[in-house]
């Protein structure tokens, strides 16, 4: 078939990883609430959430390791809980704390695992072990947390996954190894069209490699957006007390509003790519600020905690 006839992105193909209406409760408290997510083929989705936001729970449900109370998850077009062996051989998954087959040596384990995967890449295994200076002779039980994580990554990447899912992959990696991993994720997605989901606390990692970003907060995804557009479609508007008094009701695209102690307002706004900001941004004294991913995340998820400035004023009394 002529290369010209091949579409660059297959729009008909179902999302490699998706869930619809997923809810989960543990001990009476809601962790996930009717959550919908679709990751398009070839996308790198960065999932951010505070500790305990349910990132790992969501990932385990998506991987078919945990049954949701309601809703469904699909992996490569199959129900996550009933995944076929064929689908599993296309799936690379690195859990937060990888600990399997601890009695084996690194080389033995990778060799053994490799036999289950038709597209296993032994050269990649050898190169990566060398580059990350991990001896194949070392027993898995004796690896440091950082080494264990790297071995799990090698294992997930060597099977040449169509779908790669990483739960906090950078947590115990040093900055050099982290950069290595990010490069690997970025290039895999670009060249092999691998679809990637990774959760992280390290927002700058996400800003580098993610094509899409999702904020998990209070059981649902409060924001899903293409990474490149995020900084151009979100802003923090500051209105002085006089301007704040002129506002009636919510602004178009308003995500969060905070009343500051002096009567000023701080409002996080979103707009469609290419659309204009609401008229209130032109009020006298109004100031707009582009938000970095980290600031945006903090602004949106901070909820109703007591304002720091208020606390400071109280201390002064």
């Amino acid at each position, binding site marked *: 078939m002529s290369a010209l006839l091949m579409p660059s992105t297959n729009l008909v193909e179902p999302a490699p990883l998706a869930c619809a209406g997923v809810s989960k409760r543990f001990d009476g408290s809601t962790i996930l609430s009717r959550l919908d997510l679709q990751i398009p083929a070839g996308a790198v989705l960065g999932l951010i959430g505070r500790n305990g936001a349910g990132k790992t729970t969501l990932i385990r449900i998506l991987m078919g390791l945990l049954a949701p109370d309601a809703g469904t998850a699909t992996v490569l077009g199959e129900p996550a809980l009933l995944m076929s062996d064929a689908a599993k051989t296309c799936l690379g998954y690195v859990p937060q704390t990888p600990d399997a087959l601890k009695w084996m040596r690194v080389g033995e384990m990778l060799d053994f695992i490799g036999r289950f995967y038709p597209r296993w890449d032994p050269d990649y295994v050898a190169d990566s072990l060398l580059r990350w200076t991990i001896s194949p002779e070392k027993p898995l039980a004796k690896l440091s947390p950082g080494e264990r994580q790297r071995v799990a990554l090698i294992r997930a990447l060597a099977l040449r996954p169509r779908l790669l899912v990483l739960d906090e992959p950078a947590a115990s990696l040093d900055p050099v190894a982290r950069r290595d991993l990010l490069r690997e994720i970025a290039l895999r997605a670009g060249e092999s069209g691998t679809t990637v989901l990774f959760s992280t606390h390290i927002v700058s990692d996400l800003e580098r490699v993610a094509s899409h970003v999702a904020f998990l907060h209070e059981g649902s995804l409060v924001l899903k957006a293409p*990474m490149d557009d995020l900084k151009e479609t979100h802003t923090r508007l500051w209105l002085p007390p006089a301007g704040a008094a002129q506002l009636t009701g919510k602004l178009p695209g308003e995500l969060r509003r905070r009343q500051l102690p002096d009567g000023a307002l701080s409002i996080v706004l979103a707009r469609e790519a290419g659309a204009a900001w609401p008229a209130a941004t032109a009020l006298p004294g109004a100031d707009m600020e582009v938000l970095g991913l980290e600031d945006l995340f903090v602004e949106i998820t901070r909820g109703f905690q007591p304002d720091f400035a208020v606390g400071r004023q109280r201390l002064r009394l």
Partner: protein
Amino acid sequence: MDADLLHVQPSAPEPIYRQIVEQLRRLIASGKLLPGVELPSVREIAGRHAINPMTVSRAYSLLEYEGLLERQRGKGMIVAATRRRPQSDDSRLELLQPRLQEVARQARELGLPDRRVLERLQALLEEHDERIAHAVYKPR
């Protein structure tokens, strides 16, 4: 051109694709990248800076659309031939306008006298000349 000539700051206010666009625009406007110079492949830039290849592609496509870059059949991107000479001072200054506006705004917020701000800018320009005097860019 070497991929290290670009600087990527993930947490800067501009998205990464825009950072790349602006930097290449400046390098081309100043004549540091001459017509016909080959740009690094998308993979090379993505790999060197550990960023998503789609971000790099997007930057290249924008510049191609503007006519600053040209896609070569079977090869990569080159600096377009139509720009024979560096642009005029005025149009190059235009590229700096948003940053200068931001400096002006912040200088007013800080209540700094104009003279001190201009002196500091002058000093920075001279410092920059000295710093790159020993690290001249060499085309491959």
